[in-house]
């Protein structure tokens, strides 16, 4: 580059700074507007959870009164906390956390390894395997659930934690997600490590995985939500509260004839909290990528 380029670049940066200033304003304004639109429906949920009369909640539905509470109370939350016996929420909460942690933990390893091999492996027929994996994602859970029930009950897995974890560890969706993330990383990264004599597993473990924090965070969050919200499957394969997850307990509030709106709403709010915590914990991993420096180094 000639010397002339330097003042040009400086001038450009300067003029861009003012442009960036106004761009920031537009961005901040639009983010506020979008946030308002996105969050306001959820406000209704929070409001309803603070009303203690389920008939009043029902009567308020369908008008703006659903967004207003005159004397808020936490009694619904207290009531849920005090439930005991077959419906002690603590038990279900712990079960859900165990299932979530195991599914996500194992899922990260299994799916990322598969995604890595599909992206960078030398195996012949990788494209075909990838297509098959995507094809498997097409299958709706509803259409395999009954054969699966028969399979796991014959295997004697009914009413265990394992039956709620093992079937959902490997997932076409997350293999595909890891695949696309790994495939996006520069080729030089793999080649440089290969020349240094690193094995495939080592390249995956020591180079690609540390660079994949955003992908690992994404999969953790998405798998976590999926596991947390599992409903039909646990009902079919569990009998007692020994291993049943929280979603099943919440469903009791949505009764047959009349719904316990007050506690149902409070329980729904409570159910969101652990997943929100998981999300907030993992979203820190959305950090600027070190890929560039890794390539140079």
């Amino acid at each position, binding site marked *: 580059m000639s010397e002339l380029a330097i003042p040009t670049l400086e001038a450009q940066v300067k003029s861009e700074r003012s442009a960036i200033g106004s761009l920031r304003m537009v961005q901040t304004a639009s983010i506020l507007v979008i946030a308002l639109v996105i969050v306001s429906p959820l406000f209704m949920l929070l409001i309803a959870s603070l009303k203690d*009369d389920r*008939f*009043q909640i*029902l*009567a*308020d*539905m*369908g*008008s703006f*009164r659903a967004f207003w509470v005159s004397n808020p109370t936490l009694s619904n939350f207290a009531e849920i906390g005090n*439930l005991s*016996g*077959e*419906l002690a929420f603590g038990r279900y909460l712990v079960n859900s956390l165990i299932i979530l942690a195991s599914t996500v933990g194992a899922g990260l390893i299994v799916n990322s390894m598969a995604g890595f091999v599909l992206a960078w492996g030398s195996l012949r027929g990788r494209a075909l395997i990838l297509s098959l994996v995507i094809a498997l994602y097409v299958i709706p859970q509803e259409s395999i*659930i*009954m054969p699966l*029930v*028969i399979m*796991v*009950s*014959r295997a004697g897995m*009914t*009413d265990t934690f394992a039956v709620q974890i093992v079937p959902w560890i490997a997932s076409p969706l997350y293999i595909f997600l890891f695949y696309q993330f790994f495939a996006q990383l520069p080729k030089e990264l793999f080649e440089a490590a290969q020349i240094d004599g690193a094995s495939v597993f080592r390249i995956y473990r020591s180079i690609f995985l540390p660079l994949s924090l955003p992908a690992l965070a994404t999969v953790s969050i998405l798998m976590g939500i999926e596991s947390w919200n599992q*409903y*039909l499957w646990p*009902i*079919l*394969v569990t*009998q*007692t*509260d*020994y291993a049943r997850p929280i979603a*099943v307990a919440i*469903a*009791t*509030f*949505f*009764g*047959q*004839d*009349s719904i*316990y709106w007050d*506690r149902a709403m409070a329980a729904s709010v409570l159910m969101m909290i652990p997943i929100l915590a998981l999300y907030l914990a993992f979203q820190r991993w959305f950090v600027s990528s070190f890929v560039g420096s890794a390539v140079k180094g």
Partner: protein
Amino acid sequence: MASAALGGVAEAKTVIHVMHQGDPGWVATYGEIAKRFEAANPDVDVELIYAPHDAYNEKFSAAVMSKQLPDVMELDAPFLANYVWSGYLQPIKLLVDKDVIDDMTESNIAQGTYPIDKDLYAVGLTDSSVVLYGNKKYLEAIGARIPKSVDDAWTREEFEGYLEKLSTLEGVKWPIDTFRGYGIKTEWITYAYGPILQSAGCDLIDRKTWKSVGTLDGDPCVEALTMMQKWVTNGWVVPQSSGTNQFFAEGHPAALALGGHWFYAEAAASMKDDIVVMPLPKFGPKGASPNGTWIWGITTASEHPDIAGKFISFMLKDKLYRDYAREDSGYPGLKSFAADSPLYAAGGPMAVAFEQASKTAIARPPHPAYPAITSAFMGAVDEIFNGGDAKAALSKAAEKIDEDIEENDGYPPFDEQQ
């Protein structure tokens, strides 16, 4: 309830499994009953299996397929015939205490009876019904006659006349809520609208020949649904997407409500004394009202049917169980429970509703094809309420029902019944 972890201690005990649905109050109540039953019968261990009502059918098939049927199960009455025909329930008359059996109302017996052998396969403390709720102020404003008993229920002419008058009355947005808001593929459709067909002189299926073509698509049914379609197109009925609270929401936009017995608690909470409870109108020569709820049966898989029967008897007589059912405004299925429920006893606000049980209640078709029958009928009602031709929609539904029966070889021995 003993947890699975303690199984070793209870080795010598007989274990019976009880599958049920219900809201948290019911779940807690069953837990208490199980404990008390275990205290009274130290050699028995009761294991409760809860399944939410919206996944109950799926849970039942999963239990069948994985050979884990419970001893005692709660079931929705209209599915009884299907379960008995499939061989999953056993007669309970000799297993449950005689005083409980003798205590059953006619409607309760009807919902638990299998038409082939006329034997009893299930029993419940409660039953259900649908009545016509009215807003007293509006009805007085149009000078409507308020029926006092099932015998002087409104006729079709009266009913439609009042709807028309209400439609122009100040403050009334919709003359009636028929709870379309519950959804179009919910049992409510068949449960609540079926009796209108029966009152008009037809049915979902001929209960002798078990053929739907010629009955559901016959003139009386077409006429009855055309009538209902007219209410909808006139704007007399609360639309499907206006919620289920218009009878008691602010301003009381709906004047009448064709609602279940459970609706009374919801409405009374904000309307207080402004509600009148009336019997369902007569749309033809005779009145008709629905019945049926979740009742208790003993499965053929049970190794201890005697203990299972003992548990059901114990539960139905249990004071706490009855107290909770009363608090939940449960509709009595046992006479002694009716006498003990101020809401439904003579002079009570829902007395008319209970009167229907002995005078007009008709069970939904007790046929193993019921899942197909109700599904086809719901489809037809949605079609008709949205402007479709009643005759065409009902013909399609009737053909679908007959097709299902044919595919199952007539569900023998139902095909031989004449």
